[in-house]
């Protein structure tokens, strides 16, 4: 069973997500879209990845410069004459890189830097409207004081050995307060999000999974047999609700032999059947199809049943 659960896990986290993180936005068509605020762990992971990427880009740039300088050693005079120009470009480039990286990617269609993409999260406007350029600029300028400036002050202070224990402590306190800020509000807003009117939400990408109910024509004959074999009465189907149906769906999708057997025997115990061994999947598919048909039919008449503990219709 544990194997099945492990298989059912997505990159987005556990099967039962924290319900406190659910939010809704209403589209102009009037459809309510369910969204989830990104967990602090994904935010931290994204930030980490972005910092590593930025460092990599900066080191790469400097390495390329060094390699060019080495390659053009013979043209010493030429190099001296443009050296100043290159230094100017480098200082401005390194300044812009840090700011432009976040701006460029968060203004793009995915609304996410590489780090955020890897964690399946994106930036969105809190009021459900368009994400504007101003908002992205505001949230990223504030990142400078949250993180980069104090870190740079501390690094340069340490390099020039002007750092006293007190300033180091205050620096860490400063960064700590801003880094932990998202944990102290329900929408996981950092100061930049607060000022820009944005938030970071999960942006799941899912593939359309196959239909669980049997439809494969090659198996149709076998299924026809199974259908006639496994016919459940209303009483046998009324023991479960929607929660159990969707758990069964997960088990069928995961298609783990061990899980199929244990789920099959649990259902049989409950409804007093005796399954033929080796037929677990067929049995479960038939039970799933008929249970779903029954629950969906009731649903159309406005009768829903959340789980096996709720009242039967």
């Amino acid at each position, binding site marked *: 069973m544990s194997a099945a659960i492990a298989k059912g896990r997505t990159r987005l986290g556990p099967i039962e997500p924290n319900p406190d993180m659910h939010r809704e936005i209403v589209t102009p068509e009037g*459809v309510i*879209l369910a969204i989830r605020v990104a967990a602090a762990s994904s935010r931290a992971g994204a930030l980490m990845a972005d910092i590593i990427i930025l460092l990599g880009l900066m080191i790469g740039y400097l390495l390329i410069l060094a390699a060019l300088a080495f390659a053009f050693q013979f043209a010493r005079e030429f190099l001296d004459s443009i050296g100043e120009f290159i230094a100017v470009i480098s200082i401005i480039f*390194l*300044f812009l890189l840090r700011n432009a990286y976040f701006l460029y990617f968060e203004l793009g269609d995915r609304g996410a830097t590489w780090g955020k993409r890897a964690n399946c999260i994106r930036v969105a406007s*809190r009021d459900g409207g*368009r994400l504007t350029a101003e*908002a992205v600029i505001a949230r990223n300028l504030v990142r400078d004081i949250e993180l980069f400036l104090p870190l740079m002050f501390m690094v340069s202070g340490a390099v020039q050995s002007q750092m006293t224990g007190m300033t180091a402590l205050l620096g860490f306190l400063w960064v700590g307060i801003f880094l932990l800020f998202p944990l102290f509000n329900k929408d996981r807003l950092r100061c930049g999000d607060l000022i820009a009117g944005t938030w970071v939400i999960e942006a799941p990408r899912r593939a359309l999974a196959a239909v669980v109910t*049997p439809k494969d024509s090659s198996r149709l004959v076998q299924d026809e047999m199974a259908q006639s074999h496994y*016919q459940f009465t209303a009483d046998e189907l009324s023991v479960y609700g929607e929660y159990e149906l969707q758990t069964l769906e997960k088990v069928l999708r995961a298609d783990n032999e061990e899980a199929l057997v244990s789920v099959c025997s649990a259902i049989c115990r409950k409804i007093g059947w005796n399954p033929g061994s080796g037929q677990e999947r067929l049995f479960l598919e038939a039970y799933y199809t008929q249970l779903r*048909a029954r629950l969906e039919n009731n649903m159309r008449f406005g009768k829903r049943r959340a789980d096996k503990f709720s009242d039967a219709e």
Partner: protein
Amino acid sequence: MKSSAIKTGNAVSGQGELRSDRFRIEREADWERLDTIITLMEKGKRKRVSDDDVLALPTLYRTAMSSLSIARENSLDAGTIAYLEALALRAYFMVYGPQTTFLGWCGDFFGGGWSRAVRQIVPELMIALLVMGAGTLVGYFMVASDPENFYMLMDGALAGDRVPGASAQALRGTLFGQSEQEGMAIFAAFLFSNNAQVSILAFALGFAFAVPSILLLIHNMAMLGAMFWVFKSEGLGADFVGWLSIHGTTEIFAIALAGAAGIHIGRTLAFPGKMSHLQAASVAGKRAALVMVGVVMMLIVAGLLEGFARQIVDNTAGRYMVGGIMLALWLGYFTFAGRRQDI
């Protein structure tokens, strides 16, 4: 009874047995098509989306939205609903995403967006200028009362020759005749990235009710006031102001704007008016961010003036003229650009 319903379903479609599955099978081609288009667009390969697909996008988007509404009410297939939820959200962000191109945004920004934002924070700009004036006076009189105070305000290494007690000769050397000096451009670029950081700091600290922004402005201008005293004591006051004004009218204006943007956020957070605190913060934050983009541009201009124009214009009168012209240009631009769409 139930089994007969299933049997009929089977006979009709020959594929899905459940009504909700048939619903899905009929529409999944549309969903997959929308998925393909959006995936291409998300990867930045808009050009590879065919014209037919672009035209079909709004329809496909609405199909997905209505499919989601129907599926929520009629289907218990958790996999399909989860897929539709994710697809609808992605399509929503694509269809209602930012629609300006980078160039379009730039046009709007320079064609009035920036100056409008500046005009909206004029009261804060006045406060910032007042505070900066006060800071300059404080620095001046601190050093005037005791020259040793200079080192309290300023890092001796950064000041170089420009310290109290330096000879008029040495001081004059820092103001004029540096056109031959190596490395001025690097210094200018360094100053740019330094100034940009100071102004971003002044802006971003605004959310602590503007107090740190104001302190930062006072400190920076006090250094300037102290420096002015050093030069004035050797009778070089007017020359120093000329040396400063060629880029200073742009640079100090930019820092004042950054401070004003910070004060604007702080003021709005403290007194949000009729809006909620969060709403007010986001409106003020976006407006201030617009000002800040302009501030960085101004600092680049200031860096160019400092690094190149100052070396070329090596006399005080010319420096006053360039500085004055720059100031007039900025003031004119902020006053008049984008007036038409003001209200």
